[in-house]
């Protein structure tokens, strides 16, 4: 599952130009369907862009060929059987755009053009899958190496439960230094070779919780990030005034932030929802509305994720 979801991310990062087939076999409108048949067979391809005078004018596929064969029109010119003005994709667009195009139009291939509209390649679903898998394989090797270094720390320090704790003090109303705690924690997690998407989730959680301490507490509080072998636990603890109604505080849009905080772009009342979205477990406690503790767990591996699901 981890691989598949990384694949989804890659679809955003990898460009069409990186996965397309660059050596495009083209035909002209004057070629006959019989000639097309030979070209498709010899190159083992199922379609080709139609080019005239360096300009892309259409696209023709094996389906068009079969229709022509059935109708006994193998002498017809490609120009009369092709799909004119084909939908194109741009080489500098993300693969995810191409996936949307395939789903929307139902075509088997798209000519790829550069910014000037010049044909630079052709893209099939197969190209996308091959390209993404290649990328994934490269990343997998890199990640293996990093993981080894990370897990090594836990192998060398033996105890019943080894963890690394980062502790950051957060002062109330201290907007000048707001985000410093999260920034430190983000950097530390990156150094410990935690996967980037998990670092990002942990950073968003700590940042939202840090802002809550700055905005809402009277005497500040503390953020702790505890990295265990299989999970990150983030705790935000403050000394009040606490949350009288936690359920209400979790309502999107509910906020008690003063206007000056809102002017800074915070206090929109969705901070805790952002936290919840990024967390695998979340627990808010504020007994008697005297102090608040928010505890969040982010799982680092699949085993932990599955165990968590089974428990829930």
């Amino acid at each position, binding site marked *: 599952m981890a691989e598949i*979801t990384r*694949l989804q991310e890659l679809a955003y990062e990898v460009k069409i130009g990186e996965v397309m087939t660059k050596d495009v076999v083209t035909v002209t409108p004057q070629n006959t369907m019989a000639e097309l048949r030979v070209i498709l067979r010899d190159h083992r391809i199922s379609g080709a862009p139609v080019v005239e005078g360096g300009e892309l004018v259409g696209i023709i596929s094996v389906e068009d060929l079969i229709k022509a064969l059935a109708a006994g029109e193998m002498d017809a010119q490609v120009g009369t059987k092709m799909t004119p003005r084909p939908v194109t994709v741009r080489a*500098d667009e993300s693969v995810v755009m191409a996936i949307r195009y395939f789903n929307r139009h139902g075509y088997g291939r798209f000519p790829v053009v550069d910014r000037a509209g010049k044909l630079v390649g052709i893209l099939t679903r197969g190209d996308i899958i091959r390209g993404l898998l290649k990328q994934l394989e490269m990343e997998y090797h890199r990640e293996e190496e990093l993981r080894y270094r990370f897990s090594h720390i836990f192998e060398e320090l033996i105890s019943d439960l080894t963890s690394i704790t980062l502790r950051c003090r957060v002062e109330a109303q201290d907007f000048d230094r707001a985000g410093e705690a999260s920034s430190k924690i983000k950097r530390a997690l990156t150094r410990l070779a935690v996967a980037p998407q998990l670092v990002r989730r942990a950073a968003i959680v700590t940042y939202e919780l840090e802002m809550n301490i700055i905005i809402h507490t009277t005497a500040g509080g503390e953020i702790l990030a505890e990295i265990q072998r299989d999970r990150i636990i983030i705790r935000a603890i403050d000394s009040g005034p606490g949350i009288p109604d936690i359920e209400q505080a979790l309502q999107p849009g509910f906020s008690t932030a003063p206007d000056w905080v809102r002017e800074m*772009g915070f206090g929109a009342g969705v901070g805790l929802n952002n936290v919840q979205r990024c967390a695998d477990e979340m627990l808010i406690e504020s007994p008697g509305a005297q102090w608040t503790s928010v505890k969040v767990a982010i799982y680092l591996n699949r085993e932990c994720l599955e165990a968590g699901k089974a428990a829930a």
Partner: protein
Amino acid sequence: MKLREIVEIVEGTPVFETDLDLEIGCGAAADLMSDVLALVEPGAVLLTGLCNPQVVRTAEMADITAIVFVRGKQPMPETIALAKEKGIPLVTTALPMFEACGRLHQAGLRSCDISCRIPWRTPDGPDELSQ
């Protein structure tokens, strides 16, 4: 889209010397920092009217690549200092938010994914690949 093109399209000015060849995957516009943190896609350009250092902090947490300040607003000195430290390019433009967004979108910059599900978390996330 390269940062260079974005600067050209919004007729902007980089606030300090910047690598204009940075690749920008998508765009987002927000004055609410929690909205920025709700973006699920890294590598965006953020268009905003807020000029305080928190914008840079938020960008850092959300893996935003560059920030554009709209409507001729100048970032505070603290904001510039923090952005330099974090290596996040800042650009100013005289265009209002709507115009700047419109031009970028028209030029082919797509919106950031803000689906409420985080794709790498849910096995039933975006199903585009499974179709």
